[in-house]
């Protein structure tokens, strides 16, 4: 057996290069042999995030503070302008809320008349973004709420002004949010004005696109998009963004929310049942590819 001697004169089975090669071989084996989408690995990821969440919070705290402060300072500079804008928005909102209450009462009446089951109220749970896992491969965030807060896989996640993603895996204390810009995100939507149904799909680009449009669909630039509720899981009526067209005339979605500025999110706790293996997935079986 060959042995090597270190500077200190110790005998070793392998020298540094040998150890390095062994480590590289182990790493390569892990990379090429382990199954890509194994639910156990996804579960392990979620549990790791749960475990590391306090450390993530601690380490990212300075960055979040700096952003808060810089956001506060830039808000200061625009304060009077923002106040005027908020006042008029508030006024408009009041009218909208009143109209919505009336519509809600009317809808409940119609449901009673038609003997339809009443729609459960939508509950919202707030959460804070503790980590941004975005990379060239995936577009996900980590929030500091999990199963113990009522979160489960498949629930819709909103920013301040619209849908930003869905819960892809849930631990006890954290959950991962698959952003609508991720390649794996496909959400049924409907345009408010022309009633066109489509699937909003992520492309790992800043803006998701509209897929599976009917051949005769004619969308208008600036038309509002909301979730259609098709397929269950994601409730109907959640705002998303507006339709826009690229240089080739292909439609894409300008999201209401800026995904880069998210520090807080709202999770829609849907009352409808989730996918068939929902229970199994609570430990986190959703995968991104």
């Amino acid at each position, binding site marked *: 057996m060959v042995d090597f001697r270190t500077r200190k004169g110790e005998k070793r089975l392998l020298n540094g290069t040998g150890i390095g090669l062994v480590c590289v071989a182990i790493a390569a084996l892990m990379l090429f042999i382990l199954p890509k989408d194994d639910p156990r690995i996804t579960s392990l990821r979620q549990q790791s995030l749960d475990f590391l969440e306090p450390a993530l919070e601690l380490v*990212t705290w300075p960055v979040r503070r700096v952003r808060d402060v810089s956001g506060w300072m830039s808000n200061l500079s625009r304060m009077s302008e923002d106040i005027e804008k908020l006042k008029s928005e508030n006024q408009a909102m009041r009218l909208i809320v009143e109209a919505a209450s009336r519509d809600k009462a009317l809808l409940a009446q119609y449901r009673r008349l038609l003997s339809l089951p009443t729609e459960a109220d939508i509950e919202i749970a707030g959460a804070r973004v503790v980590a941004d896992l975005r990379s060239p491969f995936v577009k996900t965030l980590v929030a500091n709420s999990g199963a113990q807060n009522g979160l489960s896989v498949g629930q819709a996640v909103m920013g301040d002004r619209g849908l930003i993603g869905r819960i892809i895996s849930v631990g006890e204390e954290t959950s991962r949010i698959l952003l609508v810009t991720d390649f794996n995100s496909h959400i049924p939507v409907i345009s408010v004005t022309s009633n066109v149904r489509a699937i909003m799909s992520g492309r790992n680009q800043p803006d998701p696109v509209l897929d599976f449009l009917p051949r005769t669909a004619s969308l208008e630039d600036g038309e509002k998009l909301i979730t259609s509720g098709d397929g269950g899981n994601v409730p109907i009526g959640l705002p998303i963004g507006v339709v826009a067209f690229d240089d080739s005339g292909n439609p894409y979605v300008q999201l209401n929310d800026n995904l880069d500025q998210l520090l807080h999110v709202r999770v829609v706790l849907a009352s409808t049942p989730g996918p068939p293996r929902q229970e199994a997935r609570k430990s986190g079986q959703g995968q991104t590819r």
Partner: protein
Amino acid sequence: MSSFSQFQPQSRRDLLVSYLAIFILILLEHAPLGNYWLSAMDIGIFFIPIFFLARVYDGPWGLFGIMLLGLVKDLTSETPLGFWVLLFCLFFMLSSSQRQFLVNAGFRTVWSTFVFICLLTYGAYYLISMVHTDLPASVLLTGLSAFATMISFPLVYLPFAWVQGDEIGFRRG
């Protein structure tokens, strides 16, 4: 021009401090920065303390700690297990191979060496992602990530090495 001697970690504490620094920088990389391009890139600031460790630590077990940290990176980044483990190992081995060369090197030489190893590592990053993952890495994002890593070297390396007692008032072994 200050030069760098062969620094020996005097105790396990020094080794652990290096590991801790790598760990913190791995987590810090996931901080929500509020910018699309910064978030989309994979900036390898954690490579900088790995470079330092590889350059100064002669022990046989350093690599295993690096592997473990690579696994932490894989678990938090949603990359396939082994992806960052492999890259960390490659980076560490490449950096270790330059140990003798950098014994009396000046800062610019050290930085240049880091740049060179970065290029090789991000080249491997791109090739592995092409072969293995479902999405090929964007050439642009990979290049930008490598560039950002290279230019952030002084910002991280200098204070870190100073904390470890290597840069100024270094200990001669």
